[in-house]
């Protein structure tokens, strides 16, 4: 392995950019990401770069050739669990991050156990039914968490229509709300990354004490 900076050097650089107090909040926080596709893999990269202390990554799926056009995986990772491949990629970016992985499907039954340690939870699933299940489950069962979900980022619609809205005190929703991948408009990397960036950015804003979108 090539020479990498020490943990202390990396922490000092993050503190120089974010301020010591804010970086301490980032370092001490745990964020769960449910779904590691175009949204989740990009959220994870943003949060790892920002110096979030611990990520909990949840996805049952394996890297497929059809993922490479928008997701943060590499061609030689096809066939591997996304949890494992993403953890490896994150450690290349942020070698001292703590990553906990669960290669399972999130269900109403296991979500409390999987997500109880997280301070904030990002919903990053693909299917509308899975999104609704997670949102209802988290908001009904895990009252102290912040939840940042996404809906509507398919196609080549305007980048400017992707927004963050605050639905309840602890529930935020990013996206344009309408662009459904089921309408055969596909997903392109920049628009999915925009939505993922909205989610990751809202995580950082909440941790910094800014609760408005």
């Amino acid at each position, binding site marked *: 392995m090539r020479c990498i900076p020490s943990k202390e050097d990396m922490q000092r650089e993050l503190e120089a950019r974010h301020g010591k107090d804010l970086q301490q909040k980032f370092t001490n926080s745990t964020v769960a990401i449910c*779904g590691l*596709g*175009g*949204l*989740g893999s990009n959220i994870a990269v943003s949060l790892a770069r920002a110096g979030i202390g611990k990520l909990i990554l949840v996805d049952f799926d394996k890297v497929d050739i059809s993922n490479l056009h928008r997701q943060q995986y590499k061609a030689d990772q096809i066939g591997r669990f996304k949890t494992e491949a993403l953890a490896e990629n994150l450690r290349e970016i942020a070698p001292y991050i703590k990553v906990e992985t669960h290669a399972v499907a999130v269900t109403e039954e296991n979500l409390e156990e999987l997500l109880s340690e997280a301070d904030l939870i990002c919903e*990053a*699933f*693909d*299917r*509308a*039914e899975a*999104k*609704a299940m997670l*949102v*209802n489950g988290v*908001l*009904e069962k895990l009252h102290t968490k912040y939840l940042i*979900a*996404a*809906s*509507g*980022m*398919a196609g080549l619609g305007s980048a400017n229509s992707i927004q963050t809205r605050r*639905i*309840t*005190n602890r*529930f935020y*929703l990013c996206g344009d*709300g*309408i*662009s*459904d*991948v*089921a309408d055969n408009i596909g*997903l392109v990397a920049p628009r*999915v990354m925009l939505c993922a960036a909205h989610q990751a950015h809202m995580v950082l804003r909440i941790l910094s004490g800014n609760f408005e979108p």
Partner: protein
Amino acid sequence: MVKINGEPLDMAGKTLAEYLASTKYDPMRIAVECNGEIVPKAKYGETVLQEGDVIEVVNFVGGG
């Protein structure tokens, strides 16, 4: 009047389940917020909409 997704509707006295049944929403793809709180799915049938309630039905679409 009950304000649902910004629109005043004459739904006071009806249950949330009755309102949803009158719409095209797929119950498996939604979350419902009432006056700032999420309504548990199991309570749609017993949640009676009150005069002045502000409701948002969040309808999820696919892609991620």
